[in-house]
């Protein structure tokens, strides 16, 4: 949910509560005020009544000056003043009307009377209702006006934030230029941008040194490794080695070979990441696939694989080495991780290259094979870099690599978006 929606929602609840409190208070306040006026009036009338009684020694029948009513009953006890609300039936309008009543006791000609002075408050209630409605309208108008204004305003105020967000989204660790964020005058955003720029610079720096380390380490390993391999090779040729010694040597040689493949592939990854392969040439993937299949023919025959190959012939611009690596890795994977008597289906058109092969169920979800050093099983001779390299090539070219395992078939699809 958007921040604005969230704040608005909270403001809305607060406004609602404020509105209720406001209305109640206003209702209470205005009623009190009017009661006060009416009560004062009633006390005035009482004084008039008392005056009349004092002067004429009889009760007035009605008031001349006002619509107030006077009711008198004989009563036993004398009572003090008391105010209360009541209703009387109006004969003309055929409905009950609200009245405010002042009740007091009076002694007249040795008899006790209970006098009620009643003042209609119909108008008062009308006025209170009017005030309340007006108040409600004003408050609602203010609240909605504010919401609207805030919506307009926040779109502008938050603009730098959305700029920053967009820049962050397109930020890539490997990019050459540092993260540059739009200038803003809002203090919070200035601080946010500055922190982000510092953070990204630090991360980029760490990433570069890590990459440099990988690169340097791979380079430095190269020569000693070549020496080890050549010495093992020489040793293997010595006369008079027994079977055990030969086996040890052979195992050491295989391990050294594996290490140098590893080193070469890591270097290759670094080079692809650094975009060090230039010189795009127009390349027919169909031909590459055919020649790779031919090279692997013995492996295919020995596993008794059935190959179906539906390739369109078209050219694609790519550094030749990357094209060979891409096709080579995908096809040798399809051969290597296949079952005896299995199948490989290769489909190539201008939108995608789809290689599907029978295989055993992988132990981890297919997507994890795109990470480095991820192998189907730990006993495998593979390095776990093949798909990572393919992924890297695809990333560099702006293509996407999709891998999945369904119904006993492993499928790798390269989507060429840019052709």
């Amino acid at each position, binding site marked *: 949910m958007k921040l604005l929606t969230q704040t608005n929602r909270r403001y809305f609840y607060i406004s609602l509560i404020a509105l209720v409190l406001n209305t109640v208070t206003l209702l209470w306040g205005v009623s009190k005020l009017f009661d006060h006026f009416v009560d004062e009036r009633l006390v005035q009338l009482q004084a008039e009544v008392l005056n009349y009684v004092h002067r004429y020694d009889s009760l007035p029948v009605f008031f001349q000056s006002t619509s107030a009513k006077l009711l008198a009953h004989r009563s036993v006890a004398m009572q003090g003043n008391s105010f209360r609300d009541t209703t009387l039936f109006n004969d003309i309008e055929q409905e009950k009307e609200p009245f405010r009543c002042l009740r007091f006791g009076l002694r007249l000609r040795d008899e006790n009377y209970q006098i009620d002075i009643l003042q209609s408050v119909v108008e008062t209630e009308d006025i209170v209702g009017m005030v309340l409605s007006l108040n409600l309208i004003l408050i609602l108008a203010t609240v909605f006006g504010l919401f609207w204004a805030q919506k307009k305003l926040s779109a502008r105020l938050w603009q730098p934030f959305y700029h920053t967000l967009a820049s962050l989204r397109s930020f890539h660790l490997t990019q050459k230029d540092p993260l540059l964020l739009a200038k803003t005058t809002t203090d919070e955003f200035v601080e946010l941008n500055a922190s982000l720029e510092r953070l990204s610079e630090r991360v980029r720096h760490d990433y570069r040194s890590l990459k440099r380390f990988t690169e340097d380490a791979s380079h430095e390993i190269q020569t000693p490794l070549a020496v080890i391999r050549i010495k093992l*090779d*020489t040793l293997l*040729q010595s006369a008079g080695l027994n079977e055990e010694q030969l086996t040890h040597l*052979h195992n050491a040689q295989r391990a050294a070979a594996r290490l140098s493949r590893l080193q070469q592939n890591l270097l290759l990854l670094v080079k692809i990441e650094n975009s060090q392969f230039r010189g795009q040439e127009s390349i027919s993937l169909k031909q590459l696939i055919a020649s790779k299949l031919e090279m692997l023919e*013995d*492996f295919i025959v*020995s596993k008794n694989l059935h190959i179906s190959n539906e390739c369109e012939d078209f050219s694609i611009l790519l550094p030749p080495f990357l094209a060979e690596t891409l096709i080579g890795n995908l096809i040798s994977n399809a*051969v290597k991780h296949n079952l005896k008597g299995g199948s490989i289906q290769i489909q190539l058109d201008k939108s995608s290259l789809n290689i599907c092969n029978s295989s055993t169920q992988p132990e981890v979800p297919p997507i994890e094979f795109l990470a480095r050093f991820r192998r189907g099983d730990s006993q495998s001779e593979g390095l776990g870099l093949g798909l990572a390299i393919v992924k890297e090539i695809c990333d560099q070219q702006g293509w996407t690599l999709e891998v999945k395992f369904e119904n006993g078939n492993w499928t790798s699809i390269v989507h060429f978006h840019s052709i």
Partner: protein
Amino acid sequence: MKLLLIEDEHVMAQSIIAYLRQDGYLIEHALNFATAVQKIEVYEYDCILVDIMLPGGSGLDLVHSLKKQASAAGILILSAKNALDDRLTGLELGADDYLAKPFHLAELNARIKAILRRRQFAGNAELSYAEIKINPDARQVFVLDKPIDLTRKEYDLLLFLFINKNRVLTRETIAEHLWGDDADQMDSFDFIYSHIKNLRKKLNDHGANDYVKAVYGVGYKFSVNS
């Protein structure tokens, strides 16, 4: 045959020299660019093995100056793998072949032999040992002067073993030679065994001695009495 090895890694050079000396080559060694320039100017070689990354200069410059001198020497570039630009530049400059490090000595030997054959004998060299004769240009093998019919892989296999007589060639070395770089990552080398079996059978059927020996589950060698 006189070879010049230009390689700055001394330990590695020793092994290369030792391996090639067994085949009767005369080998000189230059450890850096300056020595290499002197040697090239003064002496004639049949084949020059040149590393590209050298102290004092690039091996590519040596290739360039050799070609300018119209030297008759064959040139084999040795360089780090993945240095694709070097490979293209080297071959464009007129080098005969390119071998990526790290390589197997047997592979190096095969490449040198191929270059020498093409250069020295204008392609008409025949290799022979006892009853076996190989014509590399026609890709033909004769046993007791009768041609035998080999598949492409069987022929390549025999030539590779033959060139590296009395050397143990591991299955990985053979696989890499015959099937390229990534062949040694494959999980099974059964088909090498079946190619070897077929090859031995064909040679035997034509009356050749059984020279191809298995070496304890490590690999094979073309075994002759020296």
